[in-house]
């Protein structure tokens, strides 16, 4: 059974149809890429699925359970994680604290216990800190644990986004342009990382402009154009699809 099923999803912003009747399904453990020209509705699609926007029409199922219009924090509880294209990092905190926020749901968040410094809370927090440090090492930030996020480089922040999302131990992870702004070497590193994440059992849905990366790591690819589904299939199918070629190169199909 598919882990994520999206059927007939549409979203309109004051007359602009950002996403129109999009349907697709993602099998567990795969890397599923969503591509399309700028303004094709990729990020809007992510925002709809992860609960940031409410869809006008359509249904979303996660593990067979309907999750349409649930708020983001409820979706996180069900195992949905994501990163942001435009970087949503808490600049008022250190790098590792950002990652630890990702592990929020695994902790006892009781206010009184926290205020009175209950030993059990402290121990769990220390354990999370170690886990967060390991995740930071995994994304290549092992030497920046206690650096204030505000003083980190763009590339560091992009990696931090991934570490934070992983700290939540999601079943399905949405990565919005994880390699944007990276040079070829860094992009290759991210590609390896994404593949590793998927191989560890976390399903990855990816929006990315770097076609080399998309083609090399994706199991399936969905192509959007003007908010509509243009094509779907394996990398080979997509490369050969005349409509996709037309949309990207602007020639008549």
């Amino acid at each position, binding site marked *: 059974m598919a882990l994520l099923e999206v059927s007939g999803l549409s979203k309109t912003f004051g007359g602009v149809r950002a996403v129109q009747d999009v349907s697709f399904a993602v099998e567990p453990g795969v890397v599923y890429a969503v591509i399309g020209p700028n303004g094709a509705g990729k990020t809007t699609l992510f925002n709809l699925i*992860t*609960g940031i926007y409410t869809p006008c029409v359509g249904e979303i199922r996660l593990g067979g359970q309907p999750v349409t219009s649930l708020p983001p924090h409820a979706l996180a509880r069900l195992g949905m994680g994501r990163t*942001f294209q435009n970087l949503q990092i808490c600049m*008022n905190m250190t790098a590792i*604290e950002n990652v*630890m926020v990702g*592990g*929020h749901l695994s902790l006892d968040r009781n206010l009184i*216990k926290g205020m009175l*410094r209950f030993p059990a809370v402290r121990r769990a927090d220390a354990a999370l800190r170690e886990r967060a440090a390991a995740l930071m090492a995994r994304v290549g930030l092992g030497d920046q644990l206690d650096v204030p996020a505000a003083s980190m480089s763009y590339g560091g922040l992009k990696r931090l986004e991934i570490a934070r999302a992983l700290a939540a131990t999601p079943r399905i992870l949405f990565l919005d342009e994880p390699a944007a702004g990276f040079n070829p070497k860094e992009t290759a590193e991210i590609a390896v990382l994404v593949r590793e994440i998927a191989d560890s059992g976390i399903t990855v849905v990816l929006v990315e402009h770097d076609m080399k990366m998309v083609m090399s790591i994706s199991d399936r690819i969905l192509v959007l154009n003007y908010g509509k589904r243009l094509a779907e299939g394996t990398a080979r199918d997509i490369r050969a699809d005349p409509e996709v070629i037309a949309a990207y190169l602007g020639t008549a199909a």
Partner: protein
Amino acid sequence: MRRARIGLLVLAAILLALPLALPNAFYFDVVNRMAINAIVVLGLNLLIGFAGQISLGHAGFFGIGAYASAVLTTHFGWSPLAALVAGAVAAALLALAIAPPIFRLRGHYLAMATLGLGIVISIVIRNEATYTGGPDGMPVPPLAAFGFEIGGEREWYWVLAGLLLFSVWACQNLIDSPFGRALRALHGSEVASQVVGVDVTRYKVTIFALSAFFASIVGSLSAHYVGFVTPNCAEFFHSVELLTMVIVGGMASVFGSVIGAVLLTALPQALATIEGWETVAFGVILIVSMIFLPKGLVPTLAAKIGWGR
């Protein structure tokens, strides 16, 4: 955290040594008022500085505590401790009741809603003169519990100093706890906290209620300490004073709250001679610190000497 604990020890040492340096009851009184303000400001800073949510009506909660202690003991024969708890619970419940719609709002709507709440509370206090004495205020009996009665500036000093130390310790713990981290995270990026499972509204509501609870308790203590309450304690200007303390000391800074309270409690003593100038001074301080020292004194100084937060 280690630095925070050093700060706590320094504060404890100062509080222990201070009575030796204070020449008379007048100075004890000033320090006691500083402590009272510092505790409220600590709670308010959790809301404004750490969670990033403004409140312009916090004096209202202070007023609820003050008047609970005054009215319930005087007119209904409650024990001061029961009245204090009742006031704090009432303030927290009121905060919980109105917070969910309020915290769906942002920025100026939030400022407006909290301000409106404070004004409604102070209007009630002014109007229910049968119980509250109206604009003239009313006397409050001394704080007595378990057969002890706290009287005089010196006895109060130890009570308030102890409470201040506890509050600083509890705030430090809270900020460093999972709850506090989520709170700071939603200030940093609301959407990022949401997608990792932070129920943002719930956190805002909880911290709002907690700071209301704190404010009410301190309002009660302050009423017993002064022995008299007037509606001024619940009014807009008091809310602005508290806000100024948060900002001058430093948003999201525990010791900033204490320093802000100390400085701005001392200020009116210095300006007491000319009415009106106090208002001007608070206004100028607000503007100047917002423009030139937006992070507040303590964080700015800490950054200067390379101490971080």
